[in-house]
């Protein structure tokens, strides 16, 4: 059969690659994720088109009749859509799929938690590449709700000292993204490697800081691509770091030091320590005050001619239709992402300038996940896009004082 005639189905969960601390799924556990991955595809495409129809044919005309004008922002659209029976039903289904993903992932992990902890210990014990600091506090923006309906969030433990949060996060992403992030969920990191090799051929950063690394999905590819680079990956959550360190070690990324630290206080590192400071899918889980202070600290520890890079879903710029903004906001209000909506409304350029950059040092670019297309399909963008989860991001970047340095050299 010609590939074009094939139906759009999710790849099987069996295609997910295993590493040294991967939970071992049973036949039926695999089948649960297979169901969810395909269900989410259905929700984004065949059923998802109903949201726009409900808006155009029902919600918008009613709104205009009542108010005598168009909705002025995504919040008004949300309130109006939340009165519409189709959208409510769609949201209820989607919320259930998110909750099922968490239950399914946790069940896989928790039934074998002792084995997983033992595996992690083998990679972690006595290694100076893992530094846990129990005095690090969980920020309010991390504890107010369990982000993306993940019970216990990143920092929760089921058994003292466990890796359950990391293992659950890792094993279930397949279900929500339909495999769009690749076998090791590292399509974003792989894309960054490809991008930098084109952007600055031959350049090798000496030190990289990855902020809010979680289980290291997107920093491991970078560490492997630059084996002589010292990589520091920080996170506030200990269970995540235990898992991340063991995972990275088992994948051969032994040049990453995982440290429990808050991005709001990088005082242990001198000014200009790193050639590359990055966050990937992180800033939307911080807060109005934390985000600028993290960018400022990141700027301070970045060396001259160093790269700052942030990967996120695209911001809600003026040209983005309000209805699309509303769709992109779904997770904020239905999947426990309380800073999502505010973050995507920020002008990241202005934020970077407040952190210390000159406007002419900034750049933006699109980054599409790099995965094995033989097995993992390209996530839809635009029509049929699962907003907020598409494997396509916006990169906000800057080279610190690059032009000044170049001028001085000339």
């Amino acid at each position, binding site marked *: 059969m010609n590939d074009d005639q094939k139906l759009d189905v999710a*790849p099987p969960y069996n295609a997910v690659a295993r590493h040294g601390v991967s939970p071992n799924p049973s036949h039926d556990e695999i089948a649960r994720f297979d169901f969810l991955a395909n269900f989410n595809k259905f929700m984004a495409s065949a059923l998802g088109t109903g949201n726009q129809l409900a808006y155009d044919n029902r919600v918008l005309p009613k709104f205009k009749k009542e108010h005598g004008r168009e909705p002025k922002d995504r919040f008004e659209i949300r309130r109006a859509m939340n009165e519409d029976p189709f959208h409510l039903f769609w949201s209820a289904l989607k919320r259930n799929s998110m909750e099922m993903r968490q239950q399914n992932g946790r069940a896989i992990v928790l039934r074998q938690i002792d084995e997983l902890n033992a595996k992690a210990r083998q990679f972690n014990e006595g290694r100076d590449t893992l530094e846990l600091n129990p005095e690090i506090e969980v920020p309010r923006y991390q504890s107010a709700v369990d982000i993306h309906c993940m019970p216990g969030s990143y920092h929760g433990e089921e058994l003292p000292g466990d890796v359950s949060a990391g293992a659950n996060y890792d094993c279930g992403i397949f279900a929500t993204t339909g495999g769009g992030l690749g076998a090791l969920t590292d399509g974003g990191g792989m894309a960054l490697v490809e991008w930098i090799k084109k952007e600055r051929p031959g350049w090798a950063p000496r030190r990289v800081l990855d902020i809010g690394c979680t289980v290291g999905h997107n920093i491991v590819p970078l560490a492997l691509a630059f084996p002589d680079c010292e990589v520091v990956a920080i996170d506030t959550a200990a269970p995540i770091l235990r898992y991340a360190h063991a995972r990275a070690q088992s994948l051969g990324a032994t040049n990453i030091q995982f440290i429990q630290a808050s991005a709001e206080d990088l005082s242990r590192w001198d000014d200009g320590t790193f050639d590359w400071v990055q966050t990937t899918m992180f800033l939307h889980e911080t807060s109005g005050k934390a985000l600028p202070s993290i960018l400022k600290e990141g700027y301070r520890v970045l060396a001259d001619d160093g790269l700052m890079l942030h990967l996120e879903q695209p911001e809600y710029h003026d040209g983005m239709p309000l209805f699309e903004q509303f769709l992109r906001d779904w997770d904020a209000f239905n999947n426990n992402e309380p800073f999502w909506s505010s973050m995507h409304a920020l002008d990241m350029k202005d934020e970077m300038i407040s952190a210390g950059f000159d406007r002419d040092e900034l750049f933006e670019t699109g980054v599409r996940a790099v995965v094995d297309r033989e097995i993992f399909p390209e996530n839809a963008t635009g029509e049929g896009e699962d907003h907020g989860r598409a494997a396509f991001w916006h990169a906000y970047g800057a080279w610190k004082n690059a032009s000044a340095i170049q001028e001085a050299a000339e």
Partner: protein
Amino acid sequence: MTDSAFDWMAAANKKAKGKRPEYFDDPEDERMLSILMAVAGEVSVLRERMDTVERLLETKGTISRDDIESYVPDKNAAYERGVMIREYIYRVMRGPHQMVEELKEAEPSLEELSKELREI
């Protein structure tokens, strides 16, 4: 061995912190939909298991549970199973799926049509 005191399935069911949005007028409907969705998922799991058993039996005379647990579909089987799950989802989701069509076009009620047909 996992300590028998650790009830992992109960722990898997833990609720996420954060008030759950209300999608229906009646809170019971929230619960009902969650049960229906879980059952829909579990039926899909059973179908996939049956499919595994059938495929294994096709190539081997007898099979063990280990064979089922370690079964990995090849590329073609993986696609066929994806199509099977997709078909299943469309079957179960007929109602909501038809809502999409309803949204495309407001249809006259059968009462109205009945009146109309009487006159033509």
